[in-house]
């Protein structure tokens, strides 16, 4: 049973528009959430994170929103650029969840010029 789920395996967006990637989790012990980005033939790289004490964290074009009551987080990319085309993984961890990162299945984002 996957504790972190990304229900959309792929997403296609026009350049300049907003990309919204969603992630749901089931373990209430998770208190720290991260997004990783992965290009083909490369390892994932850290993108942005959020602690459960916050509901929003912003870094340039990337914003992560956390809704603890719904156990849902989302990554917004505005404006989307072709170079953002990659697979995005949501991950979660918690001191009371063993401190290990649990990853979602990933969403492939395609930004069309």
């Amino acid at each position, binding site marked *: 049973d996957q504790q972190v789920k990304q229900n959309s395996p792929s997403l296609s967006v026009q350049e300049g528009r907003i990309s919204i990637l969603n992630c749901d989790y089931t373990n209430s012990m998770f208190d720290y959430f991260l997004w990783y980005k992965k290009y083909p033939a490369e390892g994932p790289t*850290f993108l942005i994170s959020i602690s459960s004490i916050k509901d929003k964290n912003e870094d340039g074009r990337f914003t992560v929103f956390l809704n603890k009551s719904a156990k849902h987080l989302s990554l917004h990319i505005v404006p989307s650029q072709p170079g953002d085309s990659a697979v995005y993984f949501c991950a979660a*961890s918690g001191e009371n969840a063993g401190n290990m990162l649990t*990853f*979602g299945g990933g969403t492939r984002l395609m930004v069309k010029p």
Partner: protein
Amino acid sequence: DVKVTQSSRYLVKRTGEKVFLECVQDMDHENMFWYRQDPGLGLRLIYFSYDVKMKEKGDIPEGYSVSREKKERFSLILESASTNQTSMYLCASSLDPSGPNTGELFFGEGSRLTVL
């Protein structure tokens, strides 16, 4: 910059062969991890290590073992490769001695293993 280097980018092995995947990091990180990435399943943790000669099972350790004789090196071993171990294998390291709770894992480029 942190560098995590995986020795083999692509490997093709036969069923029953012993396979070694090597990983080296150059930032003196305490923690090292082996994941496998499969479509739709994301990254699943196979084994991790908090220190030299220490190892802990992750979510899917069956069919794998690991070795950490030196701090910078973490090896994944498939004693007898099977076709269901065909996958992308990713090594990672992190600094936080209490685990990756503060977030950042640094990943290698991956080793794509095909078992025939």
